[in-house]
């Protein structure tokens, strides 16, 4: 699929600090790319470079084949920090951004009404932005980025401090935007959101993307755990470890922890070979790798 957003070899420094160090990312039309990484990994700098707010020291960004400065009409940006006009109403904030993107007033009014409905903002459209709750302000900020139906949408931690209802509404609208063909870069620290969005993943660390792929592809590289708890101290069970093959087996009191890419598959032959141990088995818990595990694994490695 053709990439709508393409960044390659981006380098951006702030004095001696290297914020982007060969940052590569391609996002196709209709794709939501979840950009994750610890603070300082380069996520926000990437968003700023892509939006044309910062010039890279090396590398390039193309949005639908154009440089950021020429592609501004195609882009929607919701920065990490709230950037709204507090004395203007929610509607007035939205009307400004609709107008900035050349939307005619009638079309803007219709779009604002629809978007406000989707983001549960209809009842507060005529309230000043400063009088909205934190969650409403977050949704309003996202709405200002989406009002013109951008082809590339950059959402930098849009759900920080949002309650579950706020989050669900926002995620649904982001999914809808991707469904209409937008390429979305969704920066977050809340990894379960990326599952909800059905996002592909880009893990950033040290100013570059260290892993990129679908959720399934990346999770396949991360070991999960099986935890077997026995009724009596499984002194004899320590000898089971070598039977795990590629699995790592460790013992923690009465618990045996098997770590393997597919912990269930590793556990089955182990227990089959030691039916006597199974008689003392009190509980068995399978913990397949999560996005949190993936993130920790990649950053640690």
């Amino acid at each position, binding site marked *: 699929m053709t990439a709508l957003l393409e960044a390659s070899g981006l380098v951006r420094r702030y004095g001696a600090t290297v914020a982007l160090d060969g940052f590569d990312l391609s996002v196709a039309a209709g794709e939501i790319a979840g950009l994750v990484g610890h603070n300082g990994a380069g996520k926000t700098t990437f968003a700023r470079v892509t939006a044309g707010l910062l010039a890279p020291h090396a590398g390039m960004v193309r949005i639908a084949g154009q440089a950021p400065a020429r592609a501004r009409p195609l882009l929607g940006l919701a920065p990490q920090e709230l950037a709204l006009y507090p004395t*203007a109403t929610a509607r007035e904030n939205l*009307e400004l951004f609709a107008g900035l993107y050349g939307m*005619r007033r*009638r079309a803007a009014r219709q779009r604002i009404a629809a978007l406000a409905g989707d983001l549960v903002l209809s009842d507060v459209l005529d309230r000043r932005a400063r009088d909205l709750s934190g969650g409403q302000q977050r949704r309003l900020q996202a709405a200002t980025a989406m009002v013109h139906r951008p082809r590339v949408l950059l959402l930098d931690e849009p759900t920080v401090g949002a309650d579950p209802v706020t989050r669900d509404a926002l995620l649904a609208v982001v999914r809808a935007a991707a469904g209409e063909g937008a390429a979305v870069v969704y920066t977050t620290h809340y990894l379960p959101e990326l599952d909800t969005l059905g996002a592909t993943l880009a893990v950033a660390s040290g100013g570059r993307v260290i892993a990129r792929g679908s959720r399934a592809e990346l999770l396949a590289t991360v070991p999960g755990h099986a935890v077997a708890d026995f009724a009596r101290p499984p002194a004899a069970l320590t000898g089971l470890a070598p039977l795990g093959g590629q699995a790592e087996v460790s013992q923690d009191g009465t618990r045996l922890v098997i770590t393997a890419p597919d912990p269930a598959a590793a556990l089955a032959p182990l227990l089959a070979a030691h039916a006597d141990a199974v008689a003392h088995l009190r509980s068995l818990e399978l913990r397949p790798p999560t996005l949190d595990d993936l993130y920790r694994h990649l950053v640690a490695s």
Partner: protein
Amino acid sequence: MTSSGLVIPASGSRAAAIRIAAVTRHQAVLLARDPGPMIGYTVMGLLLITATRPLYAIVAPTVPGAASGIDLAAAGMAVMFSLFALKVGAAHLLNERTWRTRDRLRASPAAFGEVLAGKAMPILAAIIAQQAVLFGVAAAAFGLRPRAGWLALAACAVAWSACVLLLGFGASTLARSPAQLSAAGDIFALLTTVIGGALVPVALLPGWLRAIAPASPGYWALAAYHTALAGSTAQLGRPLEMLGVFACIGAFLTALIAAA
């Protein structure tokens, strides 16, 4: 909007016009939501016109070109309080930084000039309205009559308001915080007022202040107003030219620092 719900934005010069109109409407809303400073600077001007008119009536015969005390009082207070209003324009630009909306505007298709034009129009209208109220009340209550005609006085008010606006925009690019802007704005307004002769007519200032008075844009604003009030249209050229020079300095400063 198409039947599929897709919004088709305008393009080219029409889109630019839509963008400027959007910023203008929005700026008008922001001004209307926070009218206190402009109302304050207008009411204070009216009070001072009323209070100082008798004093200026005594001084007027010693001031070349001044027809009456109300001429001096109205022109002086119009200049002084429009300089304080300069802070209003500057504050609205500075707000874009403190509210972090500046980057949102920068990331939009609107060019810097479009944003500035859109923001300038309502603020300019507010400063012109302030001048109109001051001169209008002076006319209604104290018999002010411009000898060069109301049109000439209006032209001076528009030229001076545009100059004030552009100087204010320039000042906002230098200030880093609202407190800094407020302090710098007060100092600039008072210096320009005093040196320009808006409080004490230039003819009565100490010699060294008289010598530097033409460096103040206020001096040329007063020259323009005094000419419109007590002179003829033919004499307006030089003061209006000089106001144009100061307006260009403000515009240049704004563009230079914004580009940097």
